């Protein structure tokens, strides 16, 4: 057989070791100022706080569900900060860190998991699509959007790039593979960003693929790269390069961010049923925040005061998230009928009217 499918251990692009040592990478030079490094650290800490608050809020019954990003902060902040304003991101349902980078307020995310909206933000305003729950679907939306960008002639150095997020499990879905193919044959300006967090609920990576995920790209005719997903600098550099490549008309790239889901799949899940705690311990040593802190400390880029101020900011943000969540107003019953159609729809209008009358009949009774 001309191609055996057996590969050497894949290269993992890393700029920062777990010990916080900046090693750099010849293919991904990254110039980063102290300010920028501190800003990334701050992002990491704040999104982790939003996330842990949300987990608590769910436990308190304030949210129906929450999908925690714990452990994936660097993958999300690194890629999110690589985006430019005009770019468009298509998230899955766990991209709270990317949302943060795109200026989505935490309460908007909470609103969805509380059940007061299906995601209340304006995707156009933020360059951030709504969360997509049906696995894989958004990879095609991203590709189509990118084909639109091509048609707008919005490529070039200041052009628009598109990014689609999904998990390791999602790579098994037909839609994801169709998206790879549509993007490839159309040379669409889209980056496929796979957060390989090693698990799809209870199923380990081996149930989804028997080779590293980034290898999938070559079979569709475009480059794939595996980056240390717990290294925010490496993710930033690799994603930036992939976006630049897309922007300049060189087509798609698959970025596999090698990371770990440190929490449960969602607040409904109990990972002790299917995975060993030793695995978690191993990954704790690679924690994305710790690593960045070591880097800042080790290179004298931040002092205790800085870290204390970030922690204080996190506390305040946590407080804000709790308050905002609790005060999210419930939707009005008649909102059921809102925006089902863009144009008048006799049938929906009538159902709405009848239901309004029905509801009013209770008020009348009550009065």
């Amino acid at each position, binding site marked *: 057989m001309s191609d055996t499918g057996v590969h050497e251990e894949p290269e993992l692009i890393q700029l920062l070791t777990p010990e916080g040592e900046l090693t750099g990478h010849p293919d991904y030079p990254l110039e980063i100022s102290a300010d920028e490094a501190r800003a990334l650290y701050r992002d990491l800490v704040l999104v982790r706080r939003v996330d842990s608050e949300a987990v608590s809020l769910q436990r308190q019954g304030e949210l129906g569900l929450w999908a925690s990003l714990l452990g994936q902060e660097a993958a999300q902040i690194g890629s999110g900060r690589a985006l430019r304003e005009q770019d468009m991101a298509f998230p899955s349902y766990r991209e709270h860190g990317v949302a943060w980078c795109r200026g989505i307020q935490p309460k908007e995310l909470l609103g969805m998991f509380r059940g007061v*909206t*299906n*995601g*209340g*933000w*304006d*995707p*156009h305003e933020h360059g951030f*699509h*709504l969360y*997509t729950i*049906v696995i894989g*679907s958004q*990879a*095609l*939306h*991203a*590709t*189509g*959007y*990118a*084909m*639109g*960008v*091509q*048609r*707008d002639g919005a490529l070039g150095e200041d052009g628009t790039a598109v990014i689609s997020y999904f998990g390791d499990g999602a790579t098994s879905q*037909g*839609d994801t593979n*169709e*998206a790879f*193919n*549509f993007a490839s*044959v159309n040379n669409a300006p889209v980056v496929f960003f796979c957060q390989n967090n090693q698990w799809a609920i209870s199923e380990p990576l081996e149930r989804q693929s028997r080779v590293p995920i980034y290898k999938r790209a070559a079979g569709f005719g475009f480059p794939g790269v595996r980056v240390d997903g717990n290294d925010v600098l490496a993710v930033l550099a690799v994603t930036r390069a992939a976006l630049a490549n897309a922007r300049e008309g060189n087509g798609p790239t698959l970025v596999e961010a090698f990371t770990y889901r440190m929490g449960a799949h969602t607040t409904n899940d109990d990972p002790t049923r299917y995975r060993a705690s030793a695995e978690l311990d191993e990954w704790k040593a690679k924690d994305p925040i710790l690593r960045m802190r070591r880097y800042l400390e080790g290179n004298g880029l931040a002092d205790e005061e800085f870290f204390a101020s970030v922690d204080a900011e996190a506390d305040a943000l946590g407080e804000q998230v709790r308050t905002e969540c609790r005060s999210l107003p419930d939707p009005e019953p008649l909102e059921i009928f*809102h*925006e*089902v*159609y*863009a*144009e008048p*729809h*006799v*049938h*929906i209008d009538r159902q709405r009217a009848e239901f309004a009358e029905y509801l009013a009949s209770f008020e009348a009774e009550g009065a």
Partner: protein
Amino acid sequence: MTNLTIGKAINAGLRAAMEHDPKVLVMGEDVGKLGGVFRVTDGLYKDFGADRVIDTPLAESGIVGTAIGMAMRGYRPVVEIQFDGFFFPAANQTFTQLAKMRRRSAGKLSMPVVMRIPYGGGIGAVEHHSESPESYFLHTAGLRVVSVANPEDAYWMIQQAIRSDDPVIFLEPKRRYYEKAEVDTEASIAEAAPMGAARVARPGTDVTLLAYGPMVKTALQAAEADTDHSIEVLDLRSLAPVDYPTVFESVRKTGRLVVAHEATLTGGPGAEIAARVTEECFYHLEAPVIRVAAFDTPYPQSRLEEYYLPDLDRVLDGVDRAFAY
């Protein structure tokens, strides 16, 4: 006035829409150089180029999924599903994404996507080329579903569908593609009958015979053939939403309703129409609503389709049954 077949009328309507709005795109399998297997997109590739007439990879989910993305970018994609039976790989993108996107986004996203589907039987085809999947669509909130029965509607309704900011499932009666009639292509779209309105295709007084798409012609033939009864033929045109005022008015006048369609009986469009009409016209009905439909079996091999599909005799039998009460 131009003499056009239904197929050519859709082609002319697509062309008019593309000329009118540069954001209108056509995409699907073989829609480019070939002009589609039914030639409905004939000539568009030549005149509008590969950027606006896109030969896609062979993947229906990919087609609808990328069309959604293009709509988000401000385009108005007209997607062709090559045959009815090949819609199903796109079911997820259609039902969970396209149909729900507007409400999911609280109106921030519009989905002006038209999905053209040549549908129905009677062309002697192999399996999966003769399906009538309209029930799956009309049960799905967020979609509009229309079908055309003549060149005039074909020409205008495709343009109306494209101008709509809602996703529209546009069902083309493939066995009627070659039916011809005069179309005034110079008229204004504003004057055309609205896409959502049913049409009295032939007035009558004794019984209402409701059909859409390919069965409208059969219904008209039945009205012609039945010399015992004065049959009022309604062409539904829009299956979702249904123009019930027009339907009720007719049924209240005639007191009897027969619904004919190629979709299978159980859970077919006739079920919903029967339920609604009975609810609203209960005291006007002299007989239950009679449904004439395909049997509840998979579409059979083509040598049996003449038995499977409701034909003139079965429609007339349905009318007779309505008078048996």
